[in-house]
């Protein structure tokens, strides 16, 4: 079981030691998680890690074998029931033969939004998803990016407190991707909690408030990017010195390889780099090349999950 650091605000969703066997194997092995309001949580993991099973359990499509999934009321005073949930499946889960407007209408109605409220929400959502000019277009005639935005728009008509997105930016161009994240940031700004799965490392690094790395049905790490690097690699940057000939002197804080032609030193921030160079100068150390490498989510991910293929 993996525990996340305790959040300071009341979560909208809590998973406690959730276990689920799926198609003969244990897909979830005791997942514990809390999702905070206004948070954009990125789920990251290799194929078959259990991300989709977890989303299906959270959305109620699958019932966990054990453990508990709790959706908390939107406000503490509200006794009307748990916070509402929206699901954006990975595929285009809209009706291609209906227009944008008609798709929004039917999915709004399925969520219990009717009448004038529905029309108001459709207008808002069309504006939000930048589809206002295409209301009469059939969904199948939209571009890939527009279809993705419509896919998301159909899930927010009822103002869900939690939005689950399964790889929402697959196959879209950078502009559409940015627009989609802008939409999600608007949602989180309004207080909604967004949980997404993706394979796009830079998206998670750039947009997500928290990152959860899953592998083999467990959460292997979670937190902000710097937290993850700290937890797995240590320092986020590394200075690498390369020598033409083996360097025989001692260099504090540097670790040499076996051939003594390469030495590395981890630094916490790029601000420490001048200090390192100054020390080298004082020691008359003149490497033939100095590299500085920053560690990202990919390093964390590979560090945590290994390099072997999963499928």
């Amino acid at each position: 079981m993996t525990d996340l650091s305790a959040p300071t605000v009341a979560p909208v969703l809590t998973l406690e030691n959730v276990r689920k066997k799926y198609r003969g194997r244990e897909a979830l092995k005791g997942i514990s998680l809390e999702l905070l309001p206004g948070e954009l949580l990125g789920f990251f993991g290799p194929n078959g890690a259990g991300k989709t099973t977890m989303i299906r359990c959270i959305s109620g499509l699958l019932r966990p074998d054990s453990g508990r999934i709790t959706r908390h009321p939107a406000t503490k005073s509200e006794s009307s029931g748990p916070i509402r949930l929206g699901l954006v499946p990975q595929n285009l889960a809209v009706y291609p033969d209906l227009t944008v407007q008609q798709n929004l209408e039917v999915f709004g109605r399925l969520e219990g939004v009717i009448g004038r409220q529905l029309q108001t929400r459709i207008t808002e959502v069309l504006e939000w998803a930048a589809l206002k000019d295409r209301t009469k277009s059939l969904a199948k005639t939209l571009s890939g990016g527009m279809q993705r935005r419509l896919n998301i728009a159909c899930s927010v008509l009822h103002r869900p407190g939690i939005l689950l997105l399964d790889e929402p930016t697959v196959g879209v161009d950078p502009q559409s991707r940015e627009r989609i994240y802008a939409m999600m940031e608007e949602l989180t700004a309004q207080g909604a909690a967004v949980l997404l799965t993706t394979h796009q490392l830079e998206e998670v690094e750039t947009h997500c408030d928290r990152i959860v790395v899953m592998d083999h049905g467990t959460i292997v790490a979670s937190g902000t990017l710097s937290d993850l690097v700290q937890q797995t690699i240590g320092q986020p940057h590394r200075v690498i010195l390369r020598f033409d000939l083996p360097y025989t002197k001692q260099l504090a804080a540097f670790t040499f390889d076996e051939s003594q032609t390469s030495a590395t030193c981890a630094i916490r921030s790029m601000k420490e780099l001048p200090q390192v160079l100054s020390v080298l100068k004082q020691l008359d150390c003149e490497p033939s090349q100095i590299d500085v490498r920053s560690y990202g989510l990919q390093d964390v991910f590979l560090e945590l999950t290994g390099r072997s293929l999963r499928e």
Partner: protein
Amino acid sequence: MILTILRILFLRLRNNPLELLLVFVMPVIFFSIFAAIFSNGIATGSDKKVRVGWISSRDTALGFQLRGFLERNSSLQCSTLHAGNLAISEDVDSMQEDKPEEDNILDDATMASRISEAQKSGRYDLIIKLPADFPNDLAHLTDDENQSACKVSLITDGQNPMAVSMVTSIVSGFFAQKKATAAAGQLMSLGTAGGDGERVNGFRGRGIGGEQSMSGARDQNRGDRFFDALREPTDIFKDDENHHWLRTDSDGVTSVHRISVVPSRWTIVPMQQEANSARSLETVLAEQPLSDVDDALSITVENPQAATQENPRIAMYAAGIAVLFLLFSATGNAAALLEEAESGTLDRILVSQAGLFHIVSGKWLGILLLGCLQITVMFLWAEAVFKIQLGQHVLGFCVMTFSTAAATASFAMLLATLCKSRAQLNAVSVVIILSMSAVGGSMIPRFAMSDRMKEFGKWTFNAWALDGYQKVFWYQSPVSSLKTEVTVLLGSALVLGLLTLILSRRWKRG
């Protein structure tokens, strides 16, 4: 390159069991179905015969003989709707002195009722009805001035026109044979009386066309009696222009002379006719086919349905085609469930306020309504163009349409629930629907099928639906008569619907 393209084609085919099914198994299935229907495949024995029902207002010797003749015919399967109030006796002579007794006569209303019931049972291709004035023997035809012919009615529901032609021919043949037998017996008696067997034989061969008919003359069945009643031959033929070729010798034996000029026709006046010689039974023998139906026989073909309906058969075709396409459109609509599952739309709907029950029920209802509309459009078109008299059968039509559409909707939903993908559903539904339609009567009229095939067809919606529509439009039966069909169809709808609900839980299990 061409070989590579060819290889791709075959590899794809090999890796796709559904396509293999359609390419190789489907034609075999259809061949088997059609072979079973149109050949002696699984339909063997008597069930390929034309099924003839028999009803007579009263029992007569001639009627009994006709029935026996039909029963001996290998292409007919003859059974009695009603054996008459008198038990049929093997002692034909006991029926010779026939005096119609009022108590033994089945009245027209009862006969009509029994015929109607028999037709609606679907057990007969044709019903032969003999009226109360059907004669006891051929001689009776000349007894009564008002009786001009043996009246035989063939009652058909129009489903099997072949049966009408076949039975008409067989009945005509029976009477032709009877007359030939009678005439031959007459000639035989003339010949043997004259002691000039060779001459008679010569005359016989030319006059009535063959040994087969003459052999009938030796049958002491009816012909003898007919001729027993004759007067002396010379008296019989005294009015005939050819009377001069009959000669009575000194011993009173009449023989035939001048056989080279045997006339083509002559008049036979039975003894009973002596007081009233104006009437005679004219028999055409030589130079005329024996099967010709002359004035002595009147075969009328009746189609009670046609009497009150303009085009009842079209309603059956409309129903057959409508049910076939209803099955296709229903599975097509149910396939949307699989598309939604594949695209994730179903997941999105399941996460919404709509539960699985709502989804399945909503789709079922949609398919049901669409099916009702589809059948209605088909019948409205049939009414507009082919005048099937939909307006007179609205209630029955509505009941049958709703039942059929309900069963079809449940069936389609179950198929969609059982299949894993749209492609699988397409292949499976094509095989099942076309098979059901072939066996159930949407493609081939059920009357053309053997009894066994008809029974097999009862496992399909098509058969029950078509039987129901047949009752409504063809037999014009009341709605209450549809209870079996409606029970089966709605029962199927309920059972298959519940199965669908149970099995549809797999959508939630992913």
